[in-house]
């Protein structure tokens, strides 16, 4: 099994996190079993940790981390890499470690259990940012989580999805990441609409609202979530599939090629500042 040293994260910005993920997984063959060495990391962030968690859960890959590592206790607290799969386990975890939201693994089977776990996750994220009383903030937190998780079970053909969030009280930033290891965007368009698109073009189709579903009213979930994150909340947003990523910050959008990198499935991550004012998401839902 090939050893991969996960490099130190140079910046906690979304681009910085994306670059760390890229450096970690570039040159990996599809579903290659890897041994991740996490000892160089002095801090962890969702866009790096959650894809690694899903990779470890869906391949025979392994990881090593020394007891003296700066992030060992953090990874234990968030239940890396297995994650939490039930509401009861989630409750137990957050009673023990009140300041951290554990990684949650959502499964297609047992729909109600999944919905309750997703609901609990979203509620915990909202509580973590501690803005109760500011009108509309809960809607802005809940909306992208709901729409983006829906997409996993509507489009990926995969039976599980992963979600993780971390609020940084001193920086007043919230990071959320949502990951699947399904067929990916280009394969979805190929299989559902017989369109042969590059990974970058498939991301573009998603952002134009062209759904793989025949219903004309579908295809708004990712685009409107991006608008809520970037326009309503003033945050940054990225979507990664295959060998491409879209990175968005307010009105700037960059379609980024990721040479020698291929993510099987879809990764979505966003970063938002702690809201200080009332937010109305509805104008962004189109």
């Amino acid at each position: 099994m090939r050893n991969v040293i996960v490099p130190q994260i140079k910046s906690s910005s979304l681009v910085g996190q994306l670059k760390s993920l890229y450096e970690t997984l570039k040159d990996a063959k599809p579903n290659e079993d890897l041994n991740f060495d996490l000892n160089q990391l002095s801090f962890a962030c969702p866009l790096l940790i959650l894809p690694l968690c899903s990779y470890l859960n869906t391949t025979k890959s392994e990881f090593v981390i020394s007891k003296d590592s700066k992030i060992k206790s953090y990874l234990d607290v968030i239940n890396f890499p297995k994650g939490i799969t039930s509401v009861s386990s989630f409750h137990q975890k957050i009673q023990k470690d009140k300041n951290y939201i554990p990684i949650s693994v959502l499964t297609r089977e047992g729909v109600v259990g999944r919905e309750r776990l997703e609901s609990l996750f979203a509620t915990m994220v909202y509580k973590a940012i501690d803005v109760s009383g500011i009108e509309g903030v809960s809607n802005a937190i809940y909306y992208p989580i709901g729409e983006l998780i829906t997409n996993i079970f509507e489009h990926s053909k995969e039976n599980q999805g992963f979600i993780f969030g971390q609020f940084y009280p001193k920086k007043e930033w919230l990071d959320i990441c949502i990951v699947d290891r399904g067929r990916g965007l280009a394969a979805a368009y190929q299989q559902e609409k017989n369109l042969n698109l590059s990974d970058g073009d498939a991301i573009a189709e998603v952002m134009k609202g062209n759904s793989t579903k025949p219903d004309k009213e579908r295809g708004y979930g990712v685009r409107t979530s991006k608008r809520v994150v970037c326009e309503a909340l003033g945050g940054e947003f990225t979507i990664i599939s295959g060998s491409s990523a879209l990175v968005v910050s307010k009105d700037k959008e960059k379609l980024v090629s990721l040479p020698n990198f291929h993510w099987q499935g879809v990764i979505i991550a966003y970063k938002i500042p702690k809201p200080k004012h009332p937010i109305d998401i509805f104008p962004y839902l189109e």
Partner: protein
Amino acid sequence: MYKLTLINAMKKEPKTVIEVAKVLAPIVGSRDVVDLLKAPIIKSDSRIVVLDFSYVEFISRSAAHELLLIKEELHQKDKELSFENVNKDITEMLRVVAANRALPKTEKPQFKAEKTDINSLREELPV
């Protein structure tokens, strides 16, 4: 989980009431989870089915869309689906989706991202 009550004293017509928070969750995010409501709604002997949204804090746009599709399907079968104890955010979500169904936007969203590669991206904000 589902209770049959006589709550429409005026019409004396039985209604089936389904408590959404108990059947699903306080936040209804996923489209496919709404499908779980469909079977008891369709099977109900009552002509009127009430979805009680007490303790439901939020529904996603996808969930709202699915609920409205069920409502329309029921209407075609001469049955009525009504939403009760709905908070203002859920009301607004249902209104936005219903408005979009009634008058879909014809304008296609623009997508004009600048193309680049990962090595050209600066790590600092903004992008």
